């Protein structure tokens, strides 16, 4: 943000003081000093009013676009998946937190559902980390970015959590989970290399595990074609039940599975933030523990589920 004319003068005074006395350490100077100084003559370049001219933030997310997609997704959320939350009150109203969830469905409907529910009922934006594959896709990549998608780079996650205190959603299983067969449903894959734990530790943010039930049945993967996947440069090429049922429409038509989303108690790590590196064994241990929490919650929810379609 830019300061206006008179506000800038002291900074300029400091700058010049530092320029003429190179020994002066700028970090030690109280920014209040020099406020009473006569403003230094300098053509003020800030005749230009500070305007962003766009509600697209520096991550590429647009609240306006999110509102549009929320309006489009609401019927699906409410009437098709009939999403129900448990433990919603465990989500923090402020401060950064890393939401860690299980991932499922060939084109996973869990990410939009989680983001939709939180933005609607908690009123906080959620940034979803995903493979950089999205960034290279025309149109889709732009829409993904406008709706809060961010490339899963450790530094991106750190900035979002630590510097800006946002909610960040991550699926540590990645495409290993969305590309798994229907037979393997609700059996969590490896949680990457535990990178998400390390980022949360570094950012000093808690991890909030989330278990999602229903996404597996919304778009089950029956077969996979590694050859097509390779040819199209995709992580997997699934033949889904939806495709068999609805033909090409099956790419976008979900089955009406009942969604239950359970928020688990936040995991705080008892370590100092902003360290260069963290103990690998500790990171792996925590990652495995969080994976266990989500897996156990899923088994518990499945035990109580009477019907895939009615919950």
């Amino acid at each position: 943000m830019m300061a206006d004319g008179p506000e800038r003068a002291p900074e300029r005074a400091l700058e010049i003081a530092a320029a003429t006395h190179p020994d002066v350490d700028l970090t030690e100077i109280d920014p209040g000093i020099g406020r009473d100084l006569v403003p230094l003559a300098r053509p003020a370049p800030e005749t230009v009013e500070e305007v962003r001219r766009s509600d697209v933030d520096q991550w590429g997310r647009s609240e306006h676009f999110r509102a549009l997609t929320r309006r489009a997704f609401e019927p699906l959320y409410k009437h098709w998946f009939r999403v129900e939350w448990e433990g919603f009150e465990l989500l923090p109203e402020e401060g950064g937190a890393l939401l860690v969830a299980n991932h499922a469905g060939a084109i996973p409907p869990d990410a939009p559902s989680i983001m939709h529910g939180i933005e609607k009922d908690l009123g906080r934006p959620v940034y979803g980390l995903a493979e950089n594959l999205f960034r290279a896709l025309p149109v889709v990549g732009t829409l993904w970015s406008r709706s809060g998608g961010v490339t899963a780079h450790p530094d991106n996650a750190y900035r979002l959590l630590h510097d800006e205190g946002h909610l960040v959603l991550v699926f540590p299983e990645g495409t290993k989970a969305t590309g798994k067969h229907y037979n393997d449903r609700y059996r969590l894959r490896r949680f990457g290399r535990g990178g998400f734990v390390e980022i949360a530790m570094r950012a000093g943010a808690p991890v909030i595990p989330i278990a999602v039930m229903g996404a597996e049945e919304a778009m089950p993967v029956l077969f996979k074609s590694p050859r097509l996947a390779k040819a199209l440069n995709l992580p997997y090429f699934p033949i889904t039940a939806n495709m068999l049922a609805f033909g090409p429409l099956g790419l976008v038509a979900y089955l009406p599975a009942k969604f239950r989303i359970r928020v688990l108690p936040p995991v705080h790590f008892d370590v100092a933030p902003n360290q260069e590196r963290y103990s690998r064994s500790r990171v792996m241990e925590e990652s495995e523990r969080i994976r266990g929490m989500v897996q156990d919650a899923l088994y518990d929810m499945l035990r109580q589920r009477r019907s895939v379609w009615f919950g």
Partner: protein
Amino acid sequence: MRALVTGLSTYWGGRVAQALEQRSDVEVVVGVDTRDPRTPLERTEFVRTDSSHSILARIVRATQVDTIVHTHLVVDSTRATSRTLHEINVIGTMNLLAAAGAPSSPVRKVVLKSSGLVYGANKADPYFFREDMPRTGPATTPVERSLLEVEGFVRDFADDNPHVDVSLLRFANVLGVDIETPFTAALRRPVVPEILGFDPRLQFVHEDDVVEALMYSINNDIPGVYNVGADGNLPWSKVCAIVGKRRVALPFVFTNLAAEPARLLRLWDLPPEAMQILRFGRTIDNTRYKRAGFHYSYTTASTIEAFAQALRLAGTIGDSSPSYRYEREVEDFFRHSPAVVRPD
């Protein structure tokens, strides 16, 4: 201070020399370049050299300069063939650093103007590049390769010469009416290219902030590598909207091939590295230089706004700054003739 400015006839070299002339503690300003200066200068001594600065060791020894400002790095690959690019950037910097690091060299400070091009623009990039982050893909264009090579020399030079303060500034894409870059040139056209389906986040820096940033490194002892880019970023579509230009979509495959007719027609001349920016965008993290005490006058949004306003003015009244032609005899007369009365 006795200063030497390379690339005197480039926009940056000229502006830096003008700023140095204003300082009373700067005794001597020497400027070198292959072409005549294009900015009016009062007391800067101009020496014509070849592009690879092979004469620089002699100039440094003869003038006993203690500060070298190297603005003569070509970052716009449309201006030079890859051969001259190599000659100017790599060989030129090598000769410059050799001159600065010669035994008993009086040089105590070197400031270089590099570019954010060294980070590239790839899909795996972090959204904000810090100075210590490596690029995520190999350098594919000659200008990027040459700048990386230059930065390697600079690192070695700084290691070998701990008594010299070396500041390397990496600039974001510069915007301003007085400077011509592939982006400013494209934004002056009635239609501006975009890549179909991509709307990346772009960051700019105002031309005045670039000069201020170079001067800040010259005036202060802050050795190190710094990113210089204005706060924030904006989607390319918004950049074009602020400047008031319509966009024309290029296909997302064979983009460079599709842009070729526009290059031949001289509509836009966006080199491959600029096309990468139109696809993935690039934002560099400017906090390190701010922490060193530098203040920006413009944000990315106000940089674009200022550019748009200046374009509108230029569209009405034409070029507002009078053109300047360097004439050696005239300049020599004003600088050295005993007939000229000079205030002390």
